């Protein structure tokens, strides 16, 4: 079935006309035309795996198609460097930090090695996340050669609970950039440089979001033994305690007293992650042989199946205890699904309570809102429609592309 299994090719801007409309695509092209002749560089720390690489894989071809030559480069570093930056990453998210004295030196030395290896001839340089942050030193050399590029730091991390030691080390680097980009106002740290709002986005044409024929959705639901004649509650996320899969089962058991429904917990990460395997085991024990609970440990290439599971569900749940931005919520909203989600991380930007979904704070609260939606299907449908429109306006990749073009134009205007 082509719609479900067709090979992915680099998307072009015009492919999105059906999703966002001709006026929006035309405006993006108008903005890009104003930047003709300018070049852009994106730098991050990995070419595959992880949300940033996924975004850049889709965004860079669209920038090129809009007429902005864009070079994507990945920094290199040894095992210890990436262990250190992982510790930084976790600390910036608010996790405990027990760093060694030489870690900051290692961070700086690896950034310096990359700086020497890389060329910075572009007009706009976007550095993603903390790993390559030290490359800002390259601007000094470029400035001496008369090149005045704009440098921007794109932070994909929630800094609201950043560990003080790590943040105080990184902050002076950040404040040398021309601007910073954050996924939510709540993730910022009150920087002295301009801070812009750059929501993370989903690609409506990617396998996990593209339209699917109803027959394919039905076939996937049947393949996993899900009865589509009864309500289906689904949470899609890796088996991680922070996603609270056991809490979802507890909420389902409350709902089950009132509605004859089923629960699907679908995710991955259990095979290559010892903690994931332990969590999966806990989830299986919590399910305790209930035939209406389906626990699906899916391989990482199951995007189309996950798409079908979301589309085949009555309600999508995201009952995380902590979250980054939680883009799985936007994926469900895009499919016009009523969503019940925790008010954590970036989820409140996506779910406006009782308008584009239902925000919850506890297991009983989660159960209550699911019951409410099941008892009020017209309201649930309306919430799903509003959710779709909210994503269309804010969380699609075309909006991300447009924001980069606007940023470029605004920075150029500020410099005169």
């Amino acid at each position, binding site marked *: 079935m082509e719609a479900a299994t067709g090979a992915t090719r680099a998307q072009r801007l015009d492919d999105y006309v059906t999703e966002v*409309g001709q*006026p*929006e695509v*035309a*405006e993006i092209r*108008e*903005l890009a035309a*104003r930047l003709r002749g300018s070049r852009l560089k994106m730098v991050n720390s990995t070419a595959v795996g992880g949300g940033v690489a996924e975004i850049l894989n889709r965004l860079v071809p669209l920038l090129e198609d809009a007429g902005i030559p864009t070079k994507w480069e990945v920094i290199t570093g040894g095992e210890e460097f990436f262990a250190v930056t992982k510790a930084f990453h976790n600390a910036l998210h608010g996790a405990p930090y027990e760093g060694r004295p030489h870690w900051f030196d290692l961070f700086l030395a690896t950034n310096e090695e990359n700086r020497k290896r890389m060329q910075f001839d572009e007009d706009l340089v976007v550095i993603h996340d903390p790993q390559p942050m030290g490359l800002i030193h390259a601007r000094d050399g470029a400035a001496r050669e008369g090149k005045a590029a704009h440098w921007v730091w794109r932070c994909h991390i929630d800094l609201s609970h950043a560990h003080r030691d790590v943040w105080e080390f990184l902050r002076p680097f950040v404040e040398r950039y021309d601007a910073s980009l*954050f996924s939510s*106002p*709540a993730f*910022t740290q*009150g*920087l002295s440089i*301009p*801070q*812009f*709002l750059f929501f993370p986005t989903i690609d409506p044409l990617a396998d996990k979001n593209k339209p699917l024929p109803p027959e394919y959705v039905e076939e996937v639901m049947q393949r996993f033994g899900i009865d589509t004649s009864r309500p289906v509650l689904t949470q899609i996320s890796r088996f991680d305690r922070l996603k609270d899969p056991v809490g979802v089962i507890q909420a389902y058991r409350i709902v089950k007293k009132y509605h004859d429904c089923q629960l699907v917990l679908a995710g991955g990460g259990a095979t290559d992650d010892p903690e994931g395997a332990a969590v999966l085991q806990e989830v299986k024990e919590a399910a305790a042989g209930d035939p209406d609970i389906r626990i699906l440990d899916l391989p990482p290439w199951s995007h189309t199946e996950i798409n079908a599971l979301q589309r085949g569900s009555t309600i999508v749940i995201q009952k995380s205890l902590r979250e980054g931005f939680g883009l799985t919520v936007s994926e469900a909203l895009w499919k016009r699904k009523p969503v019940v989600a925790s*008010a954590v991380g970036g989820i*409140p930007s996506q779910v*406006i*309570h009782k*308008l584009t979904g239902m925000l919850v704070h506890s297991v009983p609260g989660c159960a209550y809102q699911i019951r409410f939606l099941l008892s009020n299907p017209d309201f649930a449908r309306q919430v799903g429609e*509003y959710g779709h*429109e*909210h994503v269309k*306006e*804010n969380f699609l990749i075309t909006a991300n592309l*447009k*924001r980069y073009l*606007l*940023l470029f*134009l*605004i920075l150029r*205007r500020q410099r005169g």
Partner: protein
Amino acid sequence: MNRAGQPFEFVAASYLVRIRRERARTLGDLGRFLRTCSDESIFYHTFQSLETHHYSAFSSDFAQWVLAACNEAALAERLATVDVRGVTSLEELRGALAGALEEHIQASPASAERPAFEPFHFCEAAEVTVPLETRAWTLGELAEGIRRLSLHTLSYHLITSRLRLKLQTNDFSHWIQHSLGRPDLAAKVNNVDFYTNTLEGVRDEVADLLAAEAA
């Protein structure tokens, strides 16, 4: 059909949201920042967020936050119903909003320092405009042009333009009055309620109104 002496020139408008450093955690904070924040912030949270919150309970971000994060329904209603057509400057609008808040706090002092469920982050919008080739010389052409506008651009001509025009009118009404000599129709367009309708609804209402006059 009357042809204007000067055409209406459409532009494409886009916005990037800048996150400011002010962050209100209580009603008291909000009151203080309302007095000191940028004019652009006042305008953004009162008018420009209509584009993204056009289906929320209140159109004003301030009112929405006071309701959802502070659970102060009466104050939220008061902030949401400040008569935006009755003020002629952002300073006046700022005074109306801050005044309402200060009166509430005076009457209910305990509410000032009660922590909100989540903070209010002050933002403002940076605007980029690109002239389009589309021009309208008649009411019919204006109606057709409006139907093809993106919501951001509609917002620029109908709502953001109020900032340039002392909050009294909008680009369409201004052109209809001064280039077509139709103050009656200009007033009708200016009276379309963009504050409580969705932008899609407003687009249809304005275009239908103009098309009916052009027929």
